[in-house]
């Protein structure tokens, strides 16, 4: 309870930006990488292995003064389907949404099959989501299935 309260306070303290919460701990650094935080000069706060009722252990990332586009949030949905995205504007939570996987992911995930055409031709990958819960994705070209937590994000 204590730590949840702290999280709330920290969210409120952000003047503007994005808070990504409820990231499974194991996926935290993948999300960091997808967001491109390594290359940012904005203020960033990262917490991990925080207790969570839903996830057992969760991670949270707060980034000042940025909002992320749909394509980036789709990538996060693959590795962290439980993540929520809070947009903060003027110290207020302007919107709070769960990341949502689209039915089809174009050029988001690399196919794990080395013999797939997508790994041998200059072209975009395409995966169809066959199970949104897992999530489980299937390569439109070679038919290989891949679980979200194992997916290599492009």
């Amino acid at each position: 309870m204590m730590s949840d309260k702290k999280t709330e306070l920290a969210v409120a303290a952000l003047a503007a930006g994005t808070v990504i919460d409820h990231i499974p701990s194991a996926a935290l650094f993948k999300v960091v990488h997808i967001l491109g935080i390594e290359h940012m000069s904005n203020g960033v706060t990262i917490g991990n292995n925080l207790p969570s009722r839903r996830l057992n252990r969760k991670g949270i990332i707060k980034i000042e003064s940025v909002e992320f586009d749909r394509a980036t949030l789709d990538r996060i949905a693959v590795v962290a389907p439980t993540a929520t995205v809070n947009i903060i504007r003027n110290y207020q939570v302007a919107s709070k949404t769960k990341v949502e996987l689209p039915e089809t992911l174009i050029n988001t995930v690399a196919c794990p099959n080395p013999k797939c055409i997508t790994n041998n031709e200059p072209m975009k990958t395409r995966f169809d989501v066959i199970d949104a819960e897992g999530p489980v994705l299937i390569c439109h070209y070679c038919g290989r299935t891949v679980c979200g937590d194992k997916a290599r994000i492009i």
Partner: protein
Amino acid sequence: MDTHSLVAIDDLNRHEILDLLDRASYFEKNPNSHLLDGKVVATLFFEPSTRTRLSFETAVNRLGGRVIGFSDASTSSTSKGETLKDTIKMVSNYADLIVMRHFLEGAARYATEVTQVPIVNAGDGANQHPSQTLLDLYSIRKTQGRLEGLTITMVGDLKYGRTVHSLVMAMRHFKPVFNFVSSRELAMPQEYLDLCDELGIEYHVYTDFSPEVINSSDILYMTRVQRERFSDIMEYERVKDLYTLRNDMLADSKPTLRILHPLPRVNEINIDVDDNPKAYYFEQAHNGLFARQAIITACLGINPEK
């Protein structure tokens, strides 16, 4: 004229499968025609496969069409580093239909996205080979007189064998009973068992290639068990002969039983089966010609009976 590609048997519904089989029946009775007069069909074999290429090229020739193409990627511009997209676009300038075989999985699907010319997939790596499945279906219907309600026993490598996976996908439209006979290591993948459950298709999984299973079958579909599929070589040595069919095992089988195999075989069917009238694998290969004539005309939107 309505043209379309054929990339995977899974893309076809029951009606489309039956239409192709009816076309194949027609071509068995009328093998030679001028239906492809003035048409050019390209056969692009980025990976050599003499058996499949000769069958497709014979099909085109017997339909009165002309063939261009290559039989080996080393003689094509691919060996100079040209992308598949560029090769397909170049050939599209010359051909009315492209039959392609490629070592990369998904190559045919991708080809359909870069050209308006219909594509027929003649095999893309370990992925899809719809003309093989169509000839299997044709052989089943021809020998049994129907596709509905048959007991189909698949034996050998059910894990990696693409022909058995495609056959499950195609037969799901026809209320089959499946027997899946293999070692545990080469068992039918769970996704196909789940699919059967979902569709209410009866199936049985066996590790024993027993007389009871053989005697209940209408079709025995045998496949190669390849050494390189095994992570444990001892396991291969243990199971390699367990899934070999010998003539004496057929003594009490149904009179109408037929034995299919996608060929080439190694040792999974003993040669003493060859003279049994229930052995159908050589005729099965011959049916490939009619199946491919059916596919070519359907993809070009040509009605043979007009």
